[in-house]
């Protein structure tokens, strides 16, 4: 595996559109559930161990070589919110475009053809990692990190939080990010039925509220 390929894929500047999404942080800020760096840490930790673990395991499974269409269906079953399904597919479509330009492969072409409107983003990311010669745990790390870096970046803008404090939140989560990535990769080794389905009720509920806002800073 190439360590540099992992950096390219995990880079926030990888042109896959993630910067437009707050990962549920925008409604949490508006509702007063995130007011400072401590709240941000609690938010990120909760998201990491629920939606983050679930997404990381889907990515690890795709990187491992499990059927991406079956994984896409498993992702649908794990995403009761239609707003979040739409977001995941939109991000998947954008990731697919960037991935096929960066690491072209017949596997990516096949998934793009089967899901022209986009597969769930973690599945696309996992397959991209596989194409780039990365392993399941690498893919899981990427997704786990995105799960927390998105909200942290968003909260810097939404609350004018000190970027140093936001980055410190991410750095302190590093051991848990490693844990979640390892857990996700381990689950992926045991097949699709063993994948976790951890979920966060408030993220599902507020995603629907947020999608209906007429004016918002972030797409999700």
């Amino acid at each position, binding site marked *: 595996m190439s360590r540099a390929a992992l950096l390219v894929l995990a880079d926030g500047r990888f042109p896959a559109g993630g910067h437009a999404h707050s990962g*549920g942080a925008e409604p*949490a800020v508006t*509702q007063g*559930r*995130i007011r400072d760096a401590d*709240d941000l840490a*609690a*938010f*990120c*930790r*909760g*998201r*990491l*161990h*629920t939606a983050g*673990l679930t997404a990381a395991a889907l990515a690890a499974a795709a990187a491992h070589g499990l059927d991406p269409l079956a994984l896409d*269906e*498993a992702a*649908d*079953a*794990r*995403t*009761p*919110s*239609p*707003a979040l*399904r739409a977001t995941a597919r939109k991000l998947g479509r954008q990731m697919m475009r960037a991935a096929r330009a960066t690491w072209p492969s017949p596997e990516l072409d096949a998934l793009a053809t089967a899901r022209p409107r986009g597969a769930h983003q973690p599945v696309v990311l996992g397959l991209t990692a596989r194409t780039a010669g990365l392993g399941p745990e690498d893919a899981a790390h990427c997704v786990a990190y995105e799960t927390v870096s998105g909200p942290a970046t968003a909260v810097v803008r939404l609350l004018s939080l000190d970027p140093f404090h936001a980055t410190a939140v991410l750095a302190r989560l590093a051991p*848990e990010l490693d844990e979640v990535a390892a857990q996700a990769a381990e689950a992926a080794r045991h097949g699709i039925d063993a994948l*976790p*389905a*951890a*979920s*966060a*009720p*408030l*993220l*599902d*509920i507020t995603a*629907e*509220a947020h*999608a*209906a806002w007429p004016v918002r800073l972030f797409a999700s």
Partner: protein
Amino acid sequence: MSVRATARLRAEPDGRGSTALPLLESAGPLALRRTRSPLPEHARVTVVGAMSAPLNGDRLAIEAEAADGARLTVDAAAATVALPGPSTDTGSSTYAIHVNVGEGATLYWLPEQLVSSHGSDLHQTTRIELAPTARLLLREEQILGRHGEPTGALTTRLTVHRAGRPLLDQQLAYGPGAPGGWDGPAVLGGHRAVGQLFLADPSFEDAPLPARLLGPTAALTPLAGPAVLVTAVAADARLLREILDGALHELLDGLKADTGNS
């Protein structure tokens, strides 16, 4: 002394427009009683807790089947309270619910709340297999702690397959030993009652319901397949039930209107 018990029931059409219960087998603390159903075509089974359960270390299970064309309601006489039990080294308890709903069959699975008392440690799993034309209405409510006490450890997993394909898979984990952030702003935000109301109905295939908010802490969402899920959090069991009851009556009225039109 921990308990291992599996209760079983099977409902099938009785050939006279109602539903028979050829299998109704209580086990350990899970006593099953046939009770009078307000819906004439439904058989109704009420789970009556015959003793305090589950205690840590117990292994409880219910296996239920609504055969093709059957109409069955399963409810409960009281909330299920997970308790720590007499000794501290018994490990966690499990409560496994396995349900099959056949072609053209209807199952209302409406138990009372699951209360996680301080010191308890319960893993509940609900696995449901639906035939393509099956209907299922299911409610689950998790109450974290009895009044004013800290919660026990509780994990639940709800997995629904329809025609062998995944329709819903959802796992929740709360309390001591749960991964960090479970009580934080992404997951519960300090709420102590969490509930799901799930309705699968083949009519949603052609006419899916739109997503809708049911107040600030609840949403009705159409799944990718022909089903809807209501997800709600609330301060306590009573407020949670109000939200879910409102959604339940609305959903059932909607189905009745559908049947009336066809």
